[in-house]
Structures are given as structure tokens and as C-alpha cells.
């Protein structure tokens, strides 16, 4: 299951999608909206995605995981739209016979998700500013004025 959704994510969707009687270990990652970034209070977040390409790239990450670890049970879901503090933005579940592989694969899925899946985050601060962010740095903090 690889999905972009505007609905609330509980984590149960991805977990149920990977469960299998021969998979003893399920590693689940949930990313939730924090109330601050580097100490600056966050009001809410907005996520935008390119859904068909995002879902295709998620499926490709799962194929990479199958190649690397022989794991076939991977599910990813990412929310779009406005998210309040504490709401889940992303959930990834990996089921595997062995837990070490499951942890590695789930971590890999999150790393790759942030690299190649077309999803963007706009942070709206309590102080009234808002900006599109990219990992590790604010991207286009000030848009040039339209001429």
C-alpha cells in the first residue's frame, strides 16, 4: 500500500497492510507535526504532493527494499493538506521475519522518502510567517518579488 491521502493517518492502515503469519517483526514509523522547529513555535503545517508520482516513487522504494533485504511487505502513507500539531504526516510499516532487517529497511524507507518522493511541506509559524521548507534548510525563505 503506497498512498497519498487527505485523511487522518492512524498507523493502523500501514500496519494492517504488512501483517502476515510468517512475519514476526513489524517496525512502524510515525512522523507527527511537532509544536516547534529549532525552538520556533509552529502553528500548523501544510503538505502538498504530486500524488501519482509520489505513489510510484513509494512503490520503487519498496522494490529497493526487496532487492536489499528480501523484504516484500512494506507500506507507506503520507498525508497532504493542513495538519495540526500532533497529527501524523507520514507512516511507514515494514514486516519481516527478522527484526534487524525490519529496523534497517524502515529507516531506509524514511531516508529515501525524503529524497525522492515529491511531497512538500509549508511551515506556518505562530509568529505569522510561513515558508516552504526543505530538509536541513529553509528553501526559498524569501521569495523574490514578482516583477
Amino acid at each position, binding site marked *: 500500500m503506497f498512498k497519498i491521502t487527505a485523511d487522518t493517518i492512524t498507523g493502523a492502515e500501514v500496519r494492517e497492510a504488512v501483517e502476515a503469519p510468517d512475519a514476526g517483526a513489524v517496525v512502524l514509523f510515525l512522523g507527527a507535526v511537532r509544536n516547534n522547529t529549532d525552538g520556533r513555535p509552529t502553528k500548523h503545517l501544510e503538505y502538498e504532493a504530486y500524488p501519482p*508520482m509520489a505513489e510510484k516513487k513509494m512503490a520503487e522504494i519498496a522494490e529497493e527494499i526487496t532487492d536489499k533485504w528480501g523484504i516484500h511487505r512494506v507500506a507507506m502513507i503520507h498525508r497532504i493538506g493542513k495538519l495540526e500539531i500532533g497529527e501524523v504526516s507520514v507512516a511507514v510499516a515494514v514486516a519481516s521475519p527478522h527484526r534487524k532487517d525490519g529496523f534497517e529497511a524502515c529507516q531506509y524507507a524514511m531516508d529515501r522518502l525524503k529524497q525522492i518522493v*515529491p511531497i*512538500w511541506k509549508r511551515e506556518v509559524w505562530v509568529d505569522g510567517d510561513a515558508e516552504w521548507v526543505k530538509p536541513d534548510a529553509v*528553501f526559498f525563505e524569501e521569495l523574490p518579488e514578482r516583477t
Partner: protein
Amino acid sequence: MKVTVKYFAVCHEMLNRSEEEMQLPEGSTVNTILKQLEDEWPEIAEFYEVMQMAVNWEYATENTELSDGDEVALIPPVTGGIDV
């Protein structure tokens, strides 16, 4: 030929539209679109360096050749998941 061009996040905001159709001459590449956008709004070019392009849901280069009906997208740096 006619292609659909999609803009996301900061590009969407910059160009004030999320999608448009473009009529392009045969033999056009992704670069043809980038040039057209630059004509409309010169400042966009300074962001090309950090942007990626996609054709039909796959990452592409500016030299990727286009065909009628293609869906092209400008992909600013992605932030999928969370900042943690």
C-alpha cells in the same frame, strides 16, 4: 504537440498556477519549457539549479525529449515525511 506542465509548492506559488497546457514545436525538450518560463518570469531561472524535472512521473533532465500528451512537472526540493 501539446503537453501538460505541473507546478508544485514554491513553483506553484511563484507562477501563481498549479498546471497548464503548453503547445510546443516537435523536437522540444524539457529545456524548451524552462526557457518559456524564464521568458515569462526571469527570476525563476536562478532556482533551476536546485530543482528537478519529471516527465510522466519519472525524474528527467532538461535534455529529455518530449512527446505529445506528456505530463511534465517542476519538482522543487522535496521534503517528504518530516523534518526529524
